[in-house]
């Protein structure tokens, strides 16, 4: 099946070469980081996790969102999603691959990464995160590949794949829950120390993932002969609507608890993010942009007339994706480290090499995504022809 990925138009090859060059530049920067150490990044003694871990957290959500297609199709027999479930699963494969790369990029001694397996430590949440992420990657590769191959041969998917599909449902929830547990079980970090963190992660995931998928579907319709379908896109739009409303609601719950209880250790992180603390507030405009985008998206999505217009829907999806990305990919991680446990404020801003390495990982993810979507779309075209 993989041979399909090698046959393509000039535009396809151009896109892949462009991605490959970004990957190359990112990799060179990574070699520099490997030589010098993580000092090339903006991270510090006080903000010891930065852009890499934040992207990882955001992308775990995008990966988990495949379940929003799997549940309606396989558990509720919603036939329309049969056409695009594969897109969700392949998006998950690309996203989890990026997550794993971001973790490796963040390690001080990446050549020792296998110590996690050589010295298994079930008490550490990072150990479980390794298991659930790799498991989810494997599940989606196996399921996606077999279902697509069956579709190409115009036969039913093998029966043995069903249990794996059912397993992938709780597994998707687990990857983002375990990722939230990385943060919300730490005693000295008031920003993360909340039971709503995992539900918040899941709701923003189920908004960000499907909104990105809608944009991809619109793009596929434009550049290929495969139409993911109007009904499918509208169903995804409803999922995004519920999820983004839940996400803002959970955020409001958190804000109430933090500010009504008035406990400084929990409050100060929110003050830092949304108003600035002791004269430091580099993230303030970003956080308000995020909140505004999410609220605007809710207005656009919740009104059926505007949601049903695909142009407006596309705009709303961009708002949701960018809004949740700022929330998780910028604010969530450094917000938890500022102020630090001794209540000193030292801010974090990613450096240029750090951003280039990040772009390199994203380009790798898009490379994987392009190959997998090329397979899926070509086979869909073949079958319908």
């Amino acid at each position, binding site marked *: 099946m993989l041979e399909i990925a090698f046959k393509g138009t000039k535009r396809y090859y151009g896109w892949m070469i462009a991605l490959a060059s970004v990957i190359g530049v990112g990799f060179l920067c990574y070699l520099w980081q490997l030589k010098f150490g993580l000092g090339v990044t903006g991270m510090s*003694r006080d903000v010891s996790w930065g852009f890499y871990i934040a992207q990882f957290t955001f992308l775990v959500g995008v990966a988990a969102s495949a379940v929003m297609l799997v549940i309606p199709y396989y558990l509720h027999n919603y036939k329309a999603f049969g056409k695009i479930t594969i897109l969700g699963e392949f998006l998950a494969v690309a996203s989890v691959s990026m997550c794993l790369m971001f973790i490796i990029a963040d390690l*001080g001694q990446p050549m020792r990464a296998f110590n996690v397996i050589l010295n298994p*430590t079930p008490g550490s949440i*990072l150990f479980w995160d390794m298991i659930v992420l790799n498991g989810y990657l494997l599940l989606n590769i196996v399921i996606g590949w077999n279902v697509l191959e069956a579709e190409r041969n115009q036969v039913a998917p093998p029966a043995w794949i069903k249990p794996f599909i059912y397993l992938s449902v709780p597994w998707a929830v687990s990857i983002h829950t375990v990722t939230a547990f990385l943060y919300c079980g730490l*005693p*000295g*970090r008031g920003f993360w120390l909340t039971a709503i963190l995992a539900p918040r992660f899941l709701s923003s995931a189920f908004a960000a993932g499907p909104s990105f998928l809608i944009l991809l579907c619109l793009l596929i319709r434009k550049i290929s002969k495969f139409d993911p379908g109007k009904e499918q896109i509208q169903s995804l739009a409803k999922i995004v609507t519920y999820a983004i409303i839940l996400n803002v609601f959970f955020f409001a719950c958190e804000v109430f608890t933090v500010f009504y209880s008035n406990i*400084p250790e929990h409050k100060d992180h929110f003050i830092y993010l949304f108003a600035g603390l002791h004269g430091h507030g580099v993230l303030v405009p970003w956080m308000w942009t995020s909140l505004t985008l999410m609220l605007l998206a809710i207005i656009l999505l919740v009104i059926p007339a505007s949601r049903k217009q695909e142009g407006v829907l596309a705009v709303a999806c961009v708002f949701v994706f960018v809004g949740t990305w700022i929330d998780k990919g910028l604010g969530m991680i450094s917000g938890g480290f500022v102020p630090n446990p001794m209540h000193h404020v030292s801010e974090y801003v990613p450096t240029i090499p750090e951003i280039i390495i990040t772009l390199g990982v994203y380009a790798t993810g898009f490379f994987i995504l392009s190959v997998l979507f090329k397979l899926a779309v070509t086979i869909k075209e073949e079958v319908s022809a």
Partner: protein
Amino acid sequence: MENSRRRFLKIAGISALGVAGAKPVLDVFASGDSHGEAAKAQPEIRKGEKALTAKQWAMVIDTRKFKSGADLEPIIEACHKIHNVPDFMDKENPEFKEDNRRHVIKWIWEEEYNHAFPTGGEPFLNERIKHLPFLVLCNHCEDPPCVRACPTKATFKREDGIVVMDFHRCIGCRFCMAACPYGSRSFNFRDPRPFIKAEERNPEFPTRMKGVVEKCNFCAERLAVGQMPACVEASNGAIAFGDLYDPESEVRKLLASNFTIRRKDGLGTGPTVYYIV
């Protein structure tokens, strides 16, 4: 690789004991006839004869005995020199930049009361306490969150309660730094060796490489040869050190006769560094 290194050290240790004529060890090697005794022939790690031992080491810092930051400097210097802690803020170093501040390594350092004990935010603080710097270091918690977080057991709690780091096993994920509620851990964002003056380097203690986490080890290496921690020695009696579970120990006597506080004890970590204010 790491495992084989450990195994080598164990075997080397056993051999050394054998050469020295330690009879019990030879006996263990000699007895191989029955299964029960063969099982006993496991490598054994022994403490040095002078080693100081405890159920849980603890520290009491008598802040009344400090007048100003100048009293703390020799203590910090003693610790950092003995443990080859790099000085990134040394202006004479050719690689000095103000930005190096982000990468500093601290094992023991000073904080104002409101930062060492940030939960209170006392607005009307006693004048002496307000201007008195506090020594802060790893609290060697009885239930350490950093140990819980570490995915490789590179940081672990010893039998005597000391929370130590295995610099060779650490993968540099920095989960322990996020988990520590005291900011006691530092990460080697770059190679620390150019920032250790060659003439001051202590050959008895390892230097670190880039990409690993480090922190105070309660001078485990000194306790092993019967010496008190460097900060205790340099404190002119202001810092006491002893077994928290020995009612006769100096720290227990101080705790019984003075009102003491601990940093963020409400978090349930069980810090073992006590402060007399």
